């Protein structure tokens, strides 16, 4: 264990360590704490320039209700769900198949294909921007639809997901697959009945991780859609900032609302999330 476990240190050191955790956390999260406070402040307090003191009266219900009644925030949230859930499900489905093919079949060019998926996942979005937008504006008229974002995210996330799934499936012993093959089970059935049940944990990890990636996307929401009816919460929040220039309590509440779903998911599925993110950080 490194550093030395605090339990092996003097009592004073232990007490100091424990006592230092909370202030460290508060400093680290200060910007978020401030925005959380502001989201429940009254407009009068804000007008008096009291941004950083303890709120005198909490306006939690009023402010958060106002966000939903005075803006399309509810619609934005629904849009985000409608974009994110299918995109995540589809990219995981595609990459489970591709990952299995790349992990367990030997054929020429498999390593090259794998390399392409990895490389594509790191590409800057800007190099894709004009052709993808052009495709949705002129070729398949899906510009400004939820489907456009679903399709793009599905395709793009497939790169990362395939990298992840392939490495995970690689760890499944070949003997399991061979045994099924010797039994005469067809190849596709092996995938469905032998491999898929074994990769469920990986799929869960991936789902949580990719959910936050897609949910938090701002760039493509800016490039591929423009109306409130399809805008996800990230682009919506930025648009609201233009209309609510000084209503900080509403912007803050909106920011908290936008941040909440991925944060909640992270807390619920923390182990999966971290397993997904740190894949490769422990060996190599």
């Amino acid at each position, binding site marked *: 264990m490194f550093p030395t476990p605090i339990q092996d240190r003097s009592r004073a050191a232990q007490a100091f360590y424990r006592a230092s955790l909370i202030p460290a956390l508060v400093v680290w999260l200060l910007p978020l704490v401030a925005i959380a406070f502001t989201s429940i402040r009254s407009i009068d307090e804000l007008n008096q320039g009291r941004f950083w003191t303890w709120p005198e009266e909490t306006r939690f219900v009023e402010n958060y209700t106002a966000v939903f009644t005075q803006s399309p925030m509810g619609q934005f949230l629904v849009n985000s769900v409608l974009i994110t859930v299918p995109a995540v499900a589809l990219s995981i489905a*595609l990459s489970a198949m591709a990952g299995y093919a790349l992990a367990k079949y030997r054929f020429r060019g498999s390593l090259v294909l794998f390399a*392409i998926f990895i490389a594509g996942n790191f590409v800057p979005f800007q190099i894709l921007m004009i052709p993808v937008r052009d495709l949705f504006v002129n070729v398949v008229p899906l510009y400004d639809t939820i489907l456009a974002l679903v399709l793009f995210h599905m395709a793009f996330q497939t790169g990362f997901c395939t990298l992840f799934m392939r490495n995970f499936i690689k760890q499944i012993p070949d003997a399991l697959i061979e045994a099924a093959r010797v039994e005469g089970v067809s190849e596709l059935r092996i995938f469905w009945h032998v491999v898929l049940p074994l990769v469920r944990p990986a799929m869960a990890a991936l789902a949580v991780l990719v959910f936050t990636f897609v949910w938090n996307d*701002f760039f493509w929401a800016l490039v591929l859609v423009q109306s409130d009816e399809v805008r996800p919460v990230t682009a919506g929040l930025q648009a609201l900032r233009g209309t609510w220039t000084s209503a900080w309590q509403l912007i803050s509440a909106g920011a908290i609302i936008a941040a909440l779903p991925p944060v909640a998911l992270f807390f619920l599925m923390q182990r999966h999330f971290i397993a997904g993110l740190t894949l490769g*950080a422990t060996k190599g």
Partner: protein
Amino acid sequence: MSSSATPSLPVVTARPESWWHRHQASITPLLLLLPALAAFSLFVLWPIASSLWLSLHDWDGISERRFIGFDNYRELFDDRVFWTSIVNNIWWLLAFMLAPALGLAIALFLNQSVFGIRLVKSLFFFPFVISQVVVGLVFAWFYNPQYGLLNEVLRAFGIEGISPLDSETGATFAVIVAGLWPQIAYCMILYLAGLAAMNPEVIEAARMDGAKGWRLFWHAVLPQLRPATFIAVVVSVIGALRSFDLVAIMTAGGPYSSSTVLAYYMYEQTFLSVRYGYGAAVAAVLFLIMNVYIAFFLWRMLRREQA
């Protein structure tokens, strides 16, 4: 194994060998790869080629494209804002190299088993989970000259009215600080995983040999964290070069394009100046810079694959 006789499995071997049956081992991988490859080709591979080709054209997005060879690139060379973006991207890159170091520092601080530490760790990780739009909003406000926390603190020292985002020299650094916040959290989580996976025997052996503190860390701990360091550096480089959201939210590249980066300048040239070909050329430059790192990452990854 005498498989075909096993009654429990409804096996197909008894049937006459169909074409599919004989070839399924070679066709299945193709079939499984096809959807992913089709999607990836359409939305990633082809657009890259298309953008590179477009960068050799003059195009307003509507009328006919006009082939102009390398004129866009020649123009970039004399474009002051383009060079500002390059310099700013370099600042982003350099500053983002702090993220692995600071992430490691926090990971070491938190790598204890005391009551509630798991919750503390996940709260430290928070900035990475939330959208960059929210991060940008939060920091834009933090820097606000009238009621931002920064000025509140500075006022205590008798300094007033500092507005980093309105300063041509300071805006980029103010945005970078906002970018570092989630990036440090990301690196921290990578290092926490690395620390948890360390071989305790190596550490104990080094301790037996009398190593402690800094020497122990440098010679026994850090080498074991190399995989984490590698990923932390790679994701930080990529993050620095990809920076777009925060610039768009916090400064929109301003004031006077002083805080723009390649990713944002490309967007601006394409949509606000309606110069698609020129925008594509900016994207191509960013892509080529990124390729150096992508190639390095691939090389390492595939070398490991062959070992």
